[in-house]
């Protein structure tokens, strides 16, 4: 028993050693002499672990559940007949998938008349929808075609800026803005992809990252693009005036429509010769070319399509908040969308939807959870205060957790939560 656990114990001990100073000691600079000292601050480390305690508990439960499942067959009967197992087949069913985004996005609208959804919740859901569009778009390149794009937010910002800059000079009816962004975003993706797609996969990743960074810096430096504070649109009501709805409601509806359209487009392509060609390129580029798949064209198609989708999302963002800024294409944005795709499932549009919903909404919910508990007498009585506080702090830790999620998913479930189980074999053994 001990021999089996020894490597783990040693590993833990090692990790504890190398993280020891950062966790348990604090720097105490002496500014007068320009030197530095350290102080022993156990409270600091204890707070760190305390804030993460919810995560540890959840991890322990998952681990126990896993152990139980393996040794005692818990949940096996459940699993055998669950939708979860059939997910792959269910989703490929023609019309079933249309319902998912519809359910997610349309339900709140129906409650509008009874005041169920507040503007801020609508704002959150619109954002969730935008992230879903982005995740589905990125999934085309990363999941289906196997091209890692690290600067996806660059295209998002590109669309938003395109919209904002043209809005300064030309008025677009709202129904024209998105299609135009689709065309120009696709064009931008095409132009960037033309030289880049000849490069190896990891080079492509860095070049796209470079593109996003360069675009951000360019926008910060160009005076007509508003510099760092971005562009505040003179009039953000281009989406307004439809059927007496407010701007947030129209933006939400447009997002929902764009999301459904995106998923529709991507799924139709996926189950067509084009989609098969993408997967073939991901699986084996040389063989794909040898059976007549025009690899470069198909990659370009995937690349510019996903750029176009991001640009449309950017337009909706610009119309929703009425301003755009270079902060839109920070590296963290790209990483967040990538994490959504990976968590949800590479190559699976529904996985991407799921991942986006999870990674965007959970931290947001966690953040308002404490005050919601406080405001609700019944909940306030039940939930102990320390759990309430831990929820609040968890959203501070979300980047730490995103990083951990990306590693853990790659190690134990590379196909993502909803990805097909085939993908795992491919990711781990090549």
């Amino acid at each position, binding site marked *: 028993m001990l021999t089996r656990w020894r490597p783990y114990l040693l590993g833990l001990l090692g990790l504890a050693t190398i993280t020891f100073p950062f966790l348990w000691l604090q720097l105490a600079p002496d500014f007068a002499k320009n030197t530095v000292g350290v102080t022993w601050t156990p409270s600091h480390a204890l707070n760190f672990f305390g804030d993460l305690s919810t995560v540890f508990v959840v991890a322990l439960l998952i681990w126990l559940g896993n152990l139980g499942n393996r040794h005692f067959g818990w949940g096996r009967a459940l699993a055998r007949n669950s939708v979860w197992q059939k997910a792959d087949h269910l989703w490929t069913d023609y019309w079933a998938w249309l319902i998912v985004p519809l359910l997610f996005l349309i339900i709140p609208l129906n409650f509008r008349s009874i005041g169920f959804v507040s503007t801020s919740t609508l704002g959150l859901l619109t954002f969730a929808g935008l992230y879903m569009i982005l995740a589905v778009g990125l999934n085309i390149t990363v999941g289906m075609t196997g091209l890692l794009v690290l600067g996806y937010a660059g295209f998002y910002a590109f669309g938003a800026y395109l919209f904002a800059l043209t809005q300064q000079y030309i008025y677009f009816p709202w129904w024209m803005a998105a299609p135009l962004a689709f065309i120009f975003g696709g064009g931008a993706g095409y132009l960037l992809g033309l030289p880049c797609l000849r490069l190896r996969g990891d080079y492509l990743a860095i070049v796209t990252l470079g593109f996003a960074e360069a675009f951000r810096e360019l926008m910060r430096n160009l005076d007509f693009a508003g510099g760092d504070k971005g562009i505040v649109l003179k009039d953000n009501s281009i989406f307004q005036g439809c059927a007496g709805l407010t701007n947030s409601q129209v933006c939400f509806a447009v997002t929902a429509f764009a999301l459904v359209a995106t998923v529709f487009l991507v799924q139709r*392509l996926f189950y*067509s010769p084009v989609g098969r060609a993408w997967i073939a390129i991901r699986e*084996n580029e040389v*063989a794909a070319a*040898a059976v*007549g798949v025009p690899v470069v064209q198909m990659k370009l198609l995937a690349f510019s399509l996903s750029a176009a989708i991001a640009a449309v999302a950017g337009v909706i963002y610009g119309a929703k908040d009425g301003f755009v800024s270079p902060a839109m294409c920070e590296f963290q944005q790209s990483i967040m969308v990538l994490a959504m795709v990976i968590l949800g499932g590479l190559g699976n549009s529904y996985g991407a939807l799921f991942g986006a919903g999870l990674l965007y909404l959970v931290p947001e919910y966690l953040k308002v959870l404490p005050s919601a508990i406080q405001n609700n007498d019944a909940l306030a009585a039940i939930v102990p205060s320390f759990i309430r506080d831990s929820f609040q702090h968890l959203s501070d830790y979300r980047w730490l957790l995103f990083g951990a999620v990306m590693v853990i998913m790659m190690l134990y479930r590379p196909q993502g939560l909803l990805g097909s189980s085939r993908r795992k074999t491919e990711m781990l053994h090549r």
Partner: protein
Amino acid sequence: MTPLLETRSLSKTFGGLKAVQNVDLRIEANRIVSVIGPNGAGKTTFFNCLSGIYRPDGGSILLEGRDITGRPPHQVCQLGLSRTFQNIRLFPEMTVLENVLVAQFQHRSLSPLPLLLHSPHFCAQEKQSRDDALGFLDFVGLAQYADTLSSSLAYGLQRRLEIARALATRPRLLLLDEPAAGMNPQETIDMVRLISSIRDRGLAILLIEHDMKVVMTISDDILVLDHGVPIAHGAPDHVRKDPQVIKAYLGEEISN
């Protein structure tokens, strides 16, 4: 009459190594031509030049009189030359059927509107693809595995799948890179039968093979390469007696 494939003094160099030198080859329709030679003779490089994976340094390749030198692989394939690989290159995550479906890419219309609307025409085309693919699988004897993951097929079956996939591109010339490698005698016989029946469908075949028995039974013509240089070319009986070939295969002393 123009030959199906013609190479004129085809050459390829890697650094200082002359992998293929001045190879002239003519393949007529409906014939099986084999390329043999010791290990490292440049056979696979020759194939890679033909199928567009390498750009040759010199010479030209004519497919049905059309110059295809330096064209990218997918164009070469679309012009009617398809190939299999020595180290099998399937699409592991796809099913057997999907592997064959991919190969029909060039024959399918991709007009966006029917594709997005799933118009009756598009659906009919998809059904046609499926039927055709099943036909090819049936031809190589894999119909029963259509829904299996290609990576889980047995080795010999994977070779057959590669052939089915190559056939699905509707080539006029098929390049087979060691189709019988690693097979037992029975499987080899089956493979020979399969190759003959492919020829019977009206295709020309260019074959790399180490198994002399296979080569001698089915080839109409044999090209022998040694260190990238063509040293003999002709009917099997002619090649078998060629002293240079014997020397290349067996070494200096014995041929003397």
